[in-house]
């Protein structure tokens, strides 16, 4: 659940981040800077783990557009998290090709392994998981991806999922 305090946390865009915004906006014709909205929201999410209202307001100010123009985009596309997530979000493809080769069983296994239902965050804050629609890797299913790099894992088995979770847990602690 989104907590009020999460939504209120002010964000600060570093000069490095702003510089990346500038680079993106330079690609478009003068006056068409709104084209940078999707890539900029990706950068914000990679930096903060999700896209909060204060962050969206700052993006709107940067792009010189209305905040509602940012909200409507962030809420339309599935990749933007509008509430805090685990450090690692396991996104499992749940569409036909992957389901034919066991994606639903993999999702059951992940739920059991992490002990949280779809969309919720583990107590240690490390993981959340969800089913997503076709990830365009139907020949190599079941597959999952993990942002912000969207690293891809193919031909999943219960064992490979266990190892992945173990490795990520160790990585987070080091």
């Amino acid at each position: 659940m989104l907590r009020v305090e999460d939504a209120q946390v002010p964000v600060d865009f570093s000069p490095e981040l702003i510089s990346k915004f500038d680079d993106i906006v330079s690609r478009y014709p003068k006056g068409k800077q709104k084209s940078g909205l999707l890539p900029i929201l990706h950068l914000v999410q990679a930096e903060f783990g999700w896209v909060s209202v204060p962050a969206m307001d700052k993006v709107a100010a940067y792009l010189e557009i209305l905040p509602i123009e940012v909200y409507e985009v962030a809420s339309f596309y599935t990749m933007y998290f509008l509430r805090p997530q685990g450090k690692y979000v396991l996104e499992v493809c749940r569409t036909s090709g992957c389901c034919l080769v066991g994606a639903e069983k993999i999702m059951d296994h992940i739920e059991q392994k992490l002990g949280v239902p779809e969309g919720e965050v583990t107590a240690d804050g490390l993981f959340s998981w969800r089913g997503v629609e076709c990830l365009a890797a139907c020949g190599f299913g079941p597959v999952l991806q993990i942002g912000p790099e969207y690293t891809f894992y193919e031909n999943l088995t219960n064992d490979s999922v266990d190892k992945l979770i173990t490795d990520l847990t160790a990585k987070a602690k080091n």
Partner: protein
Amino acid sequence: MGRKLLLEHINVPGINTFDVYRSKGGYASVEKAIKTMSPDAIVEEVKKSGLRGRGGAGFPTGMKWSFLAKPEGVARYLVCNADESEPGTFKDRYLMTYIPHLLIEGMIVSSFALGANTSFIYVRGEMMPQIRILEKAIAEAKAKGFLGKNILGSGYDLELYVQPGGGAYICGEETALLESLEGKRGNPRIKPPFPAIAGLYGCPTVVNNVESIAAVVPIVNEGGDEYAKLGIGRSTGTKLISAGGNLKKPGVYEIDLGLPVEEFIYSDEYCGGIANGKRLKAVVAGGSSVPILPANLILKTVNNEPRLMSYESLSDGGFVSGTMLGSGGFIAYDEDACIVRNTWNFARFYHHESCGQCSPCREGTGWMEKVLHRLEYGHGRQSDMDLLVDISKKIEGNTICPLGDAAAWPVASAIRHFRDEFEWHVTNASEATTRNYGLAHYADPLPKLETA
């Protein structure tokens, strides 16, 4: 074995780098086009090639290019549609991952032909690794003088950028893609005006699929006539087919159009047959949006001739007994696959991905999903199949973009060909027998097929 025009060098180590790609003849089409051909001559070669849009619609690419308006003093754009997210389709991801320079090369030649000085590759946001691969390849090409100002000393300037999407299947529709590229929700625009007249920022724009743009490279290198010699009839050239589901050897294959479907499924050169010694039950031949066909109809046309992998042969018989080549997303279902569950899976997908702009699609896809869910989970009614067909008819053709059709066809075709299985679910399915894609709960429904 067919000719490999796109994937010939796919297994060469380092082919993702400029130097290795160049050593294999890469970027020759840019040199030929910019130094020896006029933009109109390139468009003419693409017309001669008979190349049809490889994203799914199959519209002639050269004709699409020739519609581009050319008003004085107005920018023109080429936008590559790399928002691959049609269930069953993964060829563009493969191509961009392993041989990114082929796409870059095609973008340069195509941009030159269309008079675009700024071009975009709109990649679905989930493909961040591919976005990084493309950005690196663009930087390499620019450093070697194939992009940027005064390409190869010709006076032609081109900037090429990669734009990530935000995760929305609808952005594969060209006008929704342009809306998204302008930083908006991916709501399709009403056509006309078509993008060729008013596209990105209201300027004349061509939107082409990754594979279509890559195919421009061999067309320019070898000539449109040579390309047109490959394939069969009006299905010219080669096609990337992404094969998934219950196949022994799933993967991306480049075929000459006209290859028999049976050979594609069963020969060792391609998919090697059905996994685990099972029988083939059904096939979705061109991505989830095309009608599903039972095994006997995917292997033979209405006239009992071998079905071929081509636009015409696959659609032979219309939607009663045929389907479409679409994007080449080929999903095979073995005898254990549950058609009801799969149809529900597709319906959920389209409901999830409907942009919500048109009422028939917004409401109808959700309604179909609910009815299919109750059928799958043991709460179905005998009238549900007629209800689903009725809903699908009310969506089809009544929406701004083709997503409504794409949602309707899989449901209508599944009921048309597998009605017995749906009816069986009404009386026999239950919560306890679902959550399993296998068909353990459904007694042998299949006619005994004798296949190769």
